[in-house]
């Protein structure tokens, strides 16, 4: 803004000089005529887009003289006869910030015309005020330069022909080999069978093969053994646990709200289980996304698809009093758009919240058009009942609540005089004299300050038993009658069905209070809606989305024009629908339309971004290394044709992720050795970007714990259900916030379930995971960091859980091979590392067991680098 201010100043001084010689006068025409000819066109183009009766940015309406004189949050806009002191003039002239209008500044002539008009009395004409779209203001920019679409990621993926190479047949290898040959790189040989087996297990299910599984693979020497392993792993229920976890990183999933109260999300785990099941069922990715964006708007909506919308609300929420804090709603919408953008589209849409994107052709208008597409967004609890019954249940519940509250109010009226008396008594005892004085002063005689004090202090509570003690029997009897009436009403209350946490359309201004909303008193201080309405759509007619406005500079209090839904201009091909009206009329169908655009074959990003994520998890690095950013500051694809080809193939195969795994894992590239050195290769491509050997990858935090438990034999592989709370020392629990749930469980078989099921608390991540680079659970994650730091060593050396598991592992080994130390060492290696020890390792291991114990060896094994890697 700074340069603009300067240029305005320069212009202004130019004007002053010029007008010294050529005074502009309105005397030739009446004030109203001058307005019509000179001022109205300016206002139509600039002011009225944001300062009208309907949209009053900064509370200011400039469409009539009265309104302008009244002014807005900053005071009157115009002082007739005195332009120099009029805020409107000062802001357009750059004398005072923020300079106006947004976008292209007024010309010197226009500024001078406004000065003249105000100095001559600021008359208006009688015509109605209608805004016309002006230029230069980002709310009205509707297109990006044609060249922006030339960028690779905004072009639709092409079905590139397979490169001709002599030594490889698999399509993936042909693309890779072509690049290798260009750089003179030679591919690593195939890894040995056991390495491959362990790689596939850790990759697809996140668990090592058992001894039996290893044995079975070793004896299966018939052609197709590798494919059979892949098939069995894809059919395993643990596949969904493993790959679902990858998606939960994208979905910034946690089991609590975060922030001060960190309220428990008692049913969030149902979304987690939905994700696991979606992977196990190989739910087509387009459908998977559609359900998560609009599972409540489908033609065949089910509980499952409703649960899927948990994706939208999986981020952190301040929760309490959000209705009173408009900025929080915008933060939540931003959270949704950021997750959709970085997670699904590979774009940093959130950067366009306050201004056009600095690097990518993403308009601020795009941001708010997308906001408009999701603006029906409300978070609701929904009963797991058939639709009609669900609505019945909600209606019955609302009705009962209302009836109960009426009776409660009658009880309150009976108790009030006694409560008031006791309050005064309490104030007399516990508060200073000035407070008591304020309360004792008759209401009409209180000073303004006393009124405030009295109002504040009278919100204190008094103990119920004290009220009962002073209340006469007669009133008690009346109260009893009312209480039994409440009981009668309550007896009609149907049993609460299981509830799910969903997102659907509604009107956020009527959001009912929920957990955490009541903790801080003074409901009467809250912003109350001015007109009647309802949270979820009720009654006849179709649901209408509350008005969704462009926010000037992203400020929730500076409403710009109302916007209709639209999508990213640069990534939109054709003319996608923006609303798909729903037969039941309860939602707008905007999110469904959004989902259609996101999962369309004509969306250049969605398939590419997902294919790239899958590739990343298989190879430890994406074809585009910045998984969440395909924009200009993201990395370029190392193999653009391959990425395109995979994306097209993926869509042609019905968006099947399992097919994609099969395709990738049957390539030679996936089966290359990681322990392979080539000086020539290293010189040309030290970082192995062109994939001349397999890339060893450290296990993720959850996998480290899972693999330890799987190796020790202690793991409980039950799939799904409520979260678990493995033991955390009290002193660590004490470091976290006052609120928040952790039902600390004693370490033992009950909590030896897969890490996927460990409760995710936003204000306190499980320390073991934290040490091994758990990503921030509050924003959608890109690839995980891999650090190698001393606390990891300390954890594996000293953590009681790890030591117990080592003990358990030793016991299991000793049970199978009670006497023979060499056999024990071999067995420990085979179980933990899917291979036999070398002669040297066997010797070292035998010595350790002889001199110390088997437990020493199993503990050392948990600390081996090899144990922590997928190679």
């Amino acid at each position, binding site marked *: 803004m700074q340069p603009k201010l300067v240029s305005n100043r320069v212009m202004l001084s130019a004007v002053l000089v010029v007008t010294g010689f050529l005074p502009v006068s309105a005397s030739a025409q009446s004030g109203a005529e001058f307005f019509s000819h000179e001022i109205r066109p300016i206002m139509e183009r600039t002011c009225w887009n944001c300062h009208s009766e309907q949209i009053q940015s900064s509370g200011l309406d400039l469409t009539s003289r009265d309104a302008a004189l009244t002014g807005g949050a900053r005071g009157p806009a115009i002082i007739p006869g005195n332009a120099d002191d009029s805020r409107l003039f000062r802001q357009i002239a750059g004398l005072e910030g923020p300079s106006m209008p947004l976008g292209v500044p007024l010309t010197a002539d226009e500024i001078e015309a406004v000065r003249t008009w105000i100095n001559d009395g600021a008359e208006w004409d009688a015509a109605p005020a209608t805004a016309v779209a002006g230029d230069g203001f980002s709310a009205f920019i509707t297109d990006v330069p044609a060249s922006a679409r030339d960028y690779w990621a905004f072009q639709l993926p092409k079905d590139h022909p397979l490169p001709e190479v002599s030594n490889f047949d698999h399509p993936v290898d042909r693309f890779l080999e072509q690049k290798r040959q260009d750089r003179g790189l030679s591919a690593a040989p195939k890894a040995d069978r056991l390495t491959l087996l362990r790689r596939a297990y850790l990759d697809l299910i996140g668990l090592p093969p058992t001894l039996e599984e290893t044995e079975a693979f070793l004896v299966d020497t018939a052609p197709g053994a590798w494919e059979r392993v892949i098939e069995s792993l894809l059919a395993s229920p643990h596949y969904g646990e493993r790959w679902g976890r990858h998606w939960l990183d994208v979905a910034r999933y946690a089991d609590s709200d975060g922030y001060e109260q960190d309220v428990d999300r008692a049913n969030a785990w149902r979304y987690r289980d939905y994700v696991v099941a979606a992977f196990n069922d190989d739910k087509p990715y387009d459908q998977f996304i559609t359900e998560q964006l609009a599972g409540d708007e489908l033609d065949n909506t089910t509980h499952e698809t409703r649960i899927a919308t948990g994706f939208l609300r999986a981020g952190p929420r301040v929760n309490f009093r959000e209705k009173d804090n408009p900025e929080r709603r915008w933060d939540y919408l931003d959270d949704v758009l950021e997750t959709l953008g970085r997670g699904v589209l590979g774009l940093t849409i959130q950067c366009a919240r306050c201004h056009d994107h600095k690097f990518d052709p993403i308009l601020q208008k795009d941001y708010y058009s997308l906001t408009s597409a999701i603006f029906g967004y409300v978070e609701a609890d929904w009963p797991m009942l058939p639709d009609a019954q669900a609505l019945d249940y909600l209606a019955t519940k609302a009705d009962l609540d209302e009836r109960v509250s009426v009776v409660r109010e009658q009880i309150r009226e009976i108790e009030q005089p006694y409560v008031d008396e006791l309050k005064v008594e309490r104030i007399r005892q516990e508060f200073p004299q000035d407070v008591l004085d304020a309360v004792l002063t008759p209401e009409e005689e209180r000073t303004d300050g006393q009124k405030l004090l009295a109002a504040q202090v009278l919100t204190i509570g008094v103990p119920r038993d004290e009220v009962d003690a002073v209340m006469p029997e007669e009133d008690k009897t009346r109260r009893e009658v009312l209480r039994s009436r409440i009981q009668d009403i309550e007896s009609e209350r149907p049993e609460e069905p299981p509830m799910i946490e969903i997102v659907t359309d509604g009107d956020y201004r009527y959001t009912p209070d929920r957990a955490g909303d009541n903790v801080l008193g003074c409901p009467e201080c809250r912003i109350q809606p001015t007109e009647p309405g309802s949270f979820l759509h009720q009654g006849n007619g179709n649901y209408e989305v509350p008005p969704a406005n462009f926010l000037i500079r992203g400020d929730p209090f500076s409403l710009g024009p109302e916007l209709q839904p639209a999508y990213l201009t640069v990534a939109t091909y054709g003319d996608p629908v923006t609303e798909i009206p729903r037969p039941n009329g309860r939602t707008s169908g905007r999110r469904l339309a959004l989902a259609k655009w996101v999962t369309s074959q004509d969306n250049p990003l969605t398939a590419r971004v997902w294919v790239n994520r899958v590739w990343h998890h298989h190879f430890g690095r994406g074809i585009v290394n910045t998984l969440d950013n395909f924009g200009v500051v993201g990395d370029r694809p190392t193999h653009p044709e391959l990425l395109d080809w995979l994306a097209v193939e993926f869509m042609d195969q019905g968006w099947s992720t399992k097919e994609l795994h099969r395709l990738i894992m049957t390539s030679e590239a996936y089966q290359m050795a990681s322990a392979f050195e080539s000086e020539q290769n290293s010189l040309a491509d030290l970082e192995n970007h062109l994939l001349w050997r397999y890339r060893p990858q450290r296990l993720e935090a959850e996998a480290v714990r899972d693999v330890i438990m799987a190796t020790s034999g202690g793991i409980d592989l039950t799939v799904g259900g409520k979260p678990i709370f493995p033991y955390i020392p009290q002193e660590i629990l004490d470091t976290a916030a006052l609120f928040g749930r952790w039902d600390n469980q004693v370490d033992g078989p009950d909590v030896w379930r897969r890490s996927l099921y460990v409760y995710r608390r936003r204000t306190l991540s499980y320390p073991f995971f934290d040490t091994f680079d758990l990503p921030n659970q509050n924003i959608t994650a890109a690839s995980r960091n891999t650090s190698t730091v001393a606390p990891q060593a*300390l954890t594996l050396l000293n953590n009681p859980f790890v*030591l117990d598991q080592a003990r358990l592992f030793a016991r299991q080994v000793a049970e199978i091979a009670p006497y023979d130390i060499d056999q024990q060492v071999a067995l420990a290696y085979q179980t933990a590392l899917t291979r036999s020890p*070398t002669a040297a390792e066997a010797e070292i291991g035998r010595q350790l067991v002889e001199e110390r114990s088997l437990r020493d060896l199993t503990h050392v094994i948990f600390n081996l*680098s090899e144990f922590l890697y997928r190679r």
Partner: protein
Amino acid sequence: MSDAPKKKFWSRRDFLMQSGGGIAGMALASMLDRDAVFAQSPSTAQQLSIGQQCSAKFAGAFEPRPPHFAPRAKSVISLFMSGGPSQMDTFDYKPALTKYAGVPLEDLIGEKFAVRQGMPGPLMPSPFKFAQHGESRMWVSELFPHLAKHVDDIAFIKSLYGRSNDHIQSTYEMQTGQIRMGFPSVGCWVTYGLGSENSSLPAFIVMNDYRGGPLGGPNDWGSGFMPASYQGTLFRSSGDPIVDLETPEGLTADQQRARLDVLAKLNQMDMEKYPGNSELAARISSYELAYRMQGCAPEAIDIRAESAATKKLYGLDEAITEPFGTQCLMARRLVERGVRFVQLFMGGVGVQNTDTWDAHSNLVENHTLHAAESDKPIAGLIADLKNRGLLDDTLIVWHGEFGRMPISQRGVGRDHNPGTQTAWMAGAGIQGGQAIGASDEWGYKALEQPVSAHDMHATMLHLLGLDHKKLTYRYSGRDYRLSDIEGKPIPQIIA
């Protein structure tokens, strides 16, 4: 802190044996600065204190990195007053509150405003007496008689403002610059920018109030989108400083040593299959650091060797000052040993009106307690650092998540106020005895030279020799700065 730190398998002999020839002469040997430890004849080496051994330089993940320009300070001690101390009752003297006592603030400022809890009350004068102190005649309330003696070393910032009246959001703002969860904390940025001067201790150490952690929890010292290795390491001020630092019961030192030696041998053999894989080498050396840390971390906060006079200076001889005094003394020991950033939280979760500075319901009781707990320890810290010539190299920062309202809450408390708070800085060669910025007549909002969290952070980085515009971290396609896009160093502080 009366328990001696346990050293189950730590001894000087162990240390020397191990570092001289243990762990099978791994790559580590070449990483060690032999001048510091090994070139000594055995007899000289024997005389090295554990402290000196723990100060030896090793290469590693947190190798010191050069600053952008000559730094004014090497380390930071951040004193976070959790709950939000009241500026009008500590350092921001507002006689006008007496004049306007009982008047609605709304009438004076001409606009409505919201408070965090319930409804606003009328203006309330401070129940505490103020006086001017030092040559600089700085105003300090009777709550801080000890600190008042050091005002000539302190620069007060009377106009630090924030954007949220919610504890957690504003704590995040003061710690990370953002009110949302998930951004790296200032200590994390400093570690990222400068690394560590001590390779046997974490670079960024956090100590919580003895009553519990601050509101906001570990996110207050988290690494956000940066690698987790930059996050603060929580030190406990009693027992073992770090979780999982100590070998658990039932495992002897000798046994662990044996396991470590075998582990090193096997990992070394494994690494040979992957020559040039730096991660594997780093993993091996991380075990060495872990081993050193087991000895050095307890030593670093072992205050038994401190003189009685020093302990008294921090108030360790009185029950009320003992907990925070101990932490302040430990903070000095940590910066002495090259720890880059020490974050202390004064006030922890628990009962609102006693456990943090959050004086909603009884200002007098609350602030009297917390000032009494922290005044002498902080004054002692300043004096001790000064006596030892460390104050010029150390930046002390004091603030809360927000200030408090000049109006009363039910006649006895004060509600949250992000509009302004008084923060202060000392050390790092900062000109003391100055007041920067000002709040309005009532202490409601920053009026002159408003200072944002971004400005404060930019200032801290500058004092450490880091250009806040150049210290960037690329995440999700954007070069993030701690100071975001608008922070700038406070000119009077960096002058």
